[in-house]
């Protein structure tokens, strides 16, 4: 057992882990952050996407020890208190979630994209979520939600 320290959703966290454990399992089973979903277990679907030092990664493939000393943001780290962040609110307003299992990963991928590129083209949005599978929506309302979030973030003058 090793003690891992990371900055998780803005707070320093220590957790005992075994070498070889995966970030997704530690988040879900040891830290109770169930918003990160596991679906394919092989990095194909993006349901487990989290941010590590601002980059979107598949946490179901990410060795937890690599997160040592890094900043990790999960879906629980977005928004404040009971307020949704801009991207989350846009997903609600555009009826983007259906079953919702892919949605935390989609929102995190959208955040990674917009943090880096606040004014993406339609094609760049598609590329930004091309690693996230959804079986319900056909992706259209998800794309619309990200477009709406871009507009609102531009009005707010930040990247939420």
């Amino acid at each position, binding site marked *: 057992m090793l003690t891992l320290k990371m900055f998780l959703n803005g707070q320093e966290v220590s957790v005992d882990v075994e070498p070889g454990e995966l970030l997704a399992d530690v988040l879900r089973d040891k830290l109770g952050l169930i*918003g990160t979903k596991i679906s394919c277990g*092989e990095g*194909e679907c993006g349901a487990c996407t989290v941010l590590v030092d601002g980059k979107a990664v598949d946490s179901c493939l990410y060795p937890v020890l690599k997160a040592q000393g890094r900043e990790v943001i*999960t879906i629980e780290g977005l928004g404040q208190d009971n307020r949704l962040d801009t991207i989350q609110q846009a997903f609600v307003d555009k009826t983007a979630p*259906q079953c919702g299992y892919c949605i935390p990963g989609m929102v995190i991928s959208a955040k990674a994209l917009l943090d880096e590129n606040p004014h993406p083209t339609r094609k760049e949005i598609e590329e930004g979520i091309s690693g996230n599978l959804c079986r319900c929506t056909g992706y259209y*309302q998800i794309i619309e939600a990200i477009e709406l979030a871009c507009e609102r973030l531009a009005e707010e003058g930040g990247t939420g």
Partner: protein
Amino acid sequence: MSSKVVGQSVPKIDAATKVRGQRKFPQDFNMEGQLYAKVVWSEYPHARVSKIDLSQAEALPGVVAILTSKDVPVNEYGINIMDQPVLVGEGEKVRWLGDRIAIVIAESEKIAQEARQLVRVEYEPLPVVTDPREAMKPDAPLIHEERGDSNILKHIKIRKGDIEKGFAEADVIIESYYLTPHVEHAYMQPEAGVGYIDEQGRVTVIAAAQWSHDDLHQISHMLDLPLDQVREIVPAIGGAFGGREDMYIQHLLALCAYCVRRPVKMVFDREESVMRTGKRHPYYMKYKWGATRAGKLTAMEMEIISDAGAYASTSVPVLSNSASFAAGPYVVPNAKVDAYTVYTNNAVTMAMRGFGSTQPPVAYESQMNKLAEALGMDPVELRMKNLLEDGSIALTGNPMPPGVGVKETLRQTALAAGWKEEDGVWIKPGPGLPSAPYKRRGIGVACGYKNVGYSFGFDDKTRAIVELALDESGEIARALVKLGASDQGMGAHTALAQIAAEALGIDYEKVRVALVDTSVVPDAGSCSASRHVYMSGNAVIRACQEAARKREEAIQRGERRVSAEYEYHGRSVRPTTPYDDENGMCDPHIGYGYASQIALVEVDVGTGQTEVLKVWAAQDVGKAINPEMVKGQAGGGVHMGLGYALTEEFIQKEGLIKTRRFSEYHIPTVADMPREFIPLIVEVPDPTGPYGAKGVGEMTTLPTAPAIISAIHDAVGVWIDNLPATAEKVWRAMQVRS
């Protein structure tokens, strides 16, 4: 009455918790002191189990119990016919790779995983049959000896008019043979859940399910317990599409809890979800259609063979649907249908979005497009001459009930896609210039229709309770709708809350829909057959009307709580009847929904690769309770239809499953979807629907594949009658043609 809530795209009732990651799915539940279970799966598609040796597994520290067939009080289950063993014991047969030998229960998931690999099972392999056309033959190996001397599970016959006379009247006859593949539901949330004994001693399961009250019947039968001693709770469902209508984990969790009397958690990984659970039926469809030079259909002869896989599941009702829709949404005076569903050693096949109405359009719409080409007639115009209208006599001899909107969906789609119409003559637009000299463009059209609610004399019903809390002045402060209607994600609970708000004349925000917990909510039937808006919506309206009446009395008495209940039966408005054994005539369905789509594609002539550039999709939903949710269903329907047409291949060889995960089973990514998508909502009301509403979810996927197939033909001149139209298949067909 002008509607205030119905017809508005209000936010989905669970959207905010879903975007926060707070909404709990079955794998998100953990209980104090829980154990972990793993299944020991069959290794053969057809074999007799000769020996099960648990000794090594049992010796592993941390293993709590290993359940085998001896531990199952009544070792059988099945949604339609109880032909499935829960666990296969020594001396018994496995019939596909999804059969189970044992369940290992341990203190940790890791130990359970390790222990299941230590269970030694010896098999005597038996002859395997995987092609239903072979399995139908009298000398084929029998899959279920106990069920008679044939693998044919059901044969449905329809005999209408005189097909010989009809073909003699035809100027053009088109004959083709169509094959559609197995399809994996590929919901994002793999099967998972927890089984435990609740505080009242009930065997309780938390899992995703489409029809909890039916699961209860099967679980109580399996455990030989009274119904009130079992309970199922359904949290958020991570997609279902028919795949959770049968039990794949619910009964296993119940058995674990029943045997060890402690909470037991089980989570399937993606490989288990893909390899060990049911699929959409593959179909083999032989079609012969005739039409006059003027474009009137005169005769149809169809043979449909469906691969039921190892167990019946809902193969018989799925086939029943297919036979009734075999002619497509067209009037034909003379028809003959022979439809069969046959046991094989392939994956179990079951409900999947369309329930037997998804395979026939691949055949019937390609037939229409081929006829149009042979007649030199526009494909929209040919359809307009033959499409069903109110009162038209359908294939099964019944008049179509009011609200037939298929022509309107086709008219709106065609006009949106650039067709011109003058005096009944339709002219197709050009597909535009290809993006590269080695690419060709094409445009294709297709229609589809499907039943809403359960058919063929089944007493489809839904029961709803509405509870009101009144404020001091007697106004409704809150309303709670209780019914066992699962919401797979499409928004059933949102739509039902809107319907309740409308019926009560209150704000949507004041309505809540109870979590499905069979100890609290009444049976509302399955979340399938695109039925909850129609069936449960009708029940909710009536329960609300009753609650409103009771509210007046409550105010008189100074009471603040009101509760009302209503059970709605589909037969109260439209009784349905089963097939006549000899000629198949019947009144099959309660209601219908309709759709038309047009696809614009570009095919790379060097590789055969097809890109879908644009889809126009019109669905007649009667009344859009929530237009944005309808558009969401359209997008999802096109997604599945596009995968069906082009990319999704579930490969089995001699009963062994070769497709195991998402890297091998290609559901469309955002990059595969048409860049342009034009959903069109058509509202031809069904007078019996809530506010005129019909069903939505399934119809949106029916026309996609045949529209794409037709567009590929328009682009490069080849018909792909064997889905999916992979690049290789298209390229090879082009080589043969040239």
